[in-house]
């Protein structure tokens, strides 16, 4: 433990990455709505499912989005909630079929298969890729009742995603004493990105930033822990923005590649539809 901490104090990491270097995530896309994302040894399975339901009485113009996680972690669920639901990443109004009567209910289930640090970032990343790829079955309204088509019967509908939130967790380490941290004006605290489990166990504090490529911060939380200079925080935000741009491009590439795979089938279906 102390050996590892000594290492970080010198600005090096046991896993050989640079302080601001992220792990490269791998995405394994299964059937519609099933996706496994892994980075290092962190592995998360994300399942999206949908049902027809009735909107909440106080929100007749909105569909329903439910995000569950199997480990019942308050911080994780709060940040996922703030980043995805509160920021309106998924356009809930587009899920309404008939105002106040019928709407889609989208359920996202997070299954954490393996933990090696940085769950929050990869959960949000995985959810966004999955939402971008997810297809709702097409439907018709026949005599006030809904008829659903199979995915290969009629071209399915994509969800309307308004923006792509990207989340970064930054871990802070205090290489000196508490007094130094409080009284000194110098910035000597070490900040590193995408910590693995060992590094998370050692950190003194952390900050979670969610932003999108429109240069908007969606959520920022530093819930206590060692104080960090405000100039440093702003600097980190800028770095995160650059990374978010790259990440957004990466997501778009992944989604495009996957859609090309299925597009041939969709084209065929469209031809059937026209007939």
């Amino acid at each position, binding site marked *: 433990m102390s050996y590892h901490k000594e290492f970080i104090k010198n600005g090096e990491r046991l896993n050989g990455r640079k302080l601001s270097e992220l792990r490269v995530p791998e995405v394994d896309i299964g059937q519609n709505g099933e996706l496994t994302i892994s980075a290092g040894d962190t592995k998360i399975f994300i399942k999206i499912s949908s049902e027809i339901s009735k909107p909440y009485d106080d929100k007749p113009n909105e569909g329903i989005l439910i995000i569950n996680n199997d480990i019942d972690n308050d911080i994780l669920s709060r940040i996922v909630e703030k980043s995805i639901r509160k920021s309106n990443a998924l356009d809930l109004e587009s899920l309404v079929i008939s105002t106040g009567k019928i709407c889609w209910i989208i359920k996202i289930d997070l299954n954490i298969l393996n933990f090696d640090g940085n769950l929050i970032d990869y959960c949000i990343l995985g959810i966004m890729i999955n939402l971008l790829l997810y297809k709702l079955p097409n439907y018709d309204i026949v005599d006030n009742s809904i008829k659903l088509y199979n995915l290969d019967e009629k071209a399915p509908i994509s969800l309307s995603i308004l923006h792509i939130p990207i989340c970064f967790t930054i871990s802070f380490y205090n290489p000196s004493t508490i007094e130094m941290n409080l009284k000194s*004006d110098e910035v000597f605290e070490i900040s590193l990105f995408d910590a693995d489990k060992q590094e998370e166990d050692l950190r003194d504090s952390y900050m979670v930033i969610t932003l999108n490529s429109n*240069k908007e911060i969606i959520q920022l*939380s530093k819930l206590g822990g060692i104080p960090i200079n*405000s100039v440093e925080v702003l600097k980190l935000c800028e770095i995160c923005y650059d990374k978010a741009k790259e990440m957004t491009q990466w997501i778009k590439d992944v989604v495009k590649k996957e859609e090309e795979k299925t597009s041939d089938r969709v084209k065929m279906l469209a031809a059937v539809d026209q007939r």
Partner: protein
Amino acid sequence: MPRLELYSPEGLRIDGRRWNELRRFECKINTHPNSSDGSSYVEQGNSKVICTVQGPMEPKLRSQMNHDEANIEVNISIANFATFQRKKRSKNERRIVELKNTLENTVKQCIITTLYPRTLISINIQVLSQDGGLLSSMTNAMTLSLIDAGISMYDYVSSISVGLFDQFPLLDLNTLEENELSYLTVGVIGKSDKLVMLMLENKVPLDKLEELISLAIAGSHRLRDLMDNEVKRHGKLRLKNLN
């Protein structure tokens, strides 16, 4: 309902303040001397918070005992009548648990916990009336009652919220403003530029963040002075009674 004019072209806000003005900040310490070791009452505009501190004391459970430092526990209860609409809140609501954890982690940084090994410091916060700046008024009340309890601290923790209206940052929001604007809450230890707590839940352009944070830090420093005045006033009063 017509959209409220939150910030008039003349530069006045809904309650007549300018952009960089705090609401009336009143605080008292040692309000409940018989039921606690330290207590305080904070009014920030119409937000009203009571905070009491018990401890350092022996923890009831062995599991709450830490051999190197004091264990700090924060309990929050928000009165049913605290908001405009009467509402019953459970203690285990996710949002309240998040606030509780935030306060615990924040206050740990400013108490010299190593001076009180094997003890428990229990902080109870009662929110009587909520009118914006929930987290910040709770933090300020907590600081004052810890000082009243005579617990060794490095410095004051002060906290304030700032919002963004169009292009203009506004200091110390009330509920009406909080509902309409995106805002962030900042917590600072003493008169430093270092952020111990930072919470932002709505969209804010990255370019505006610097302006918001610097306004919030200035506001927090101002609150620290106001709290310091009250502590000094109370100290003098006690000294007078002693003689």
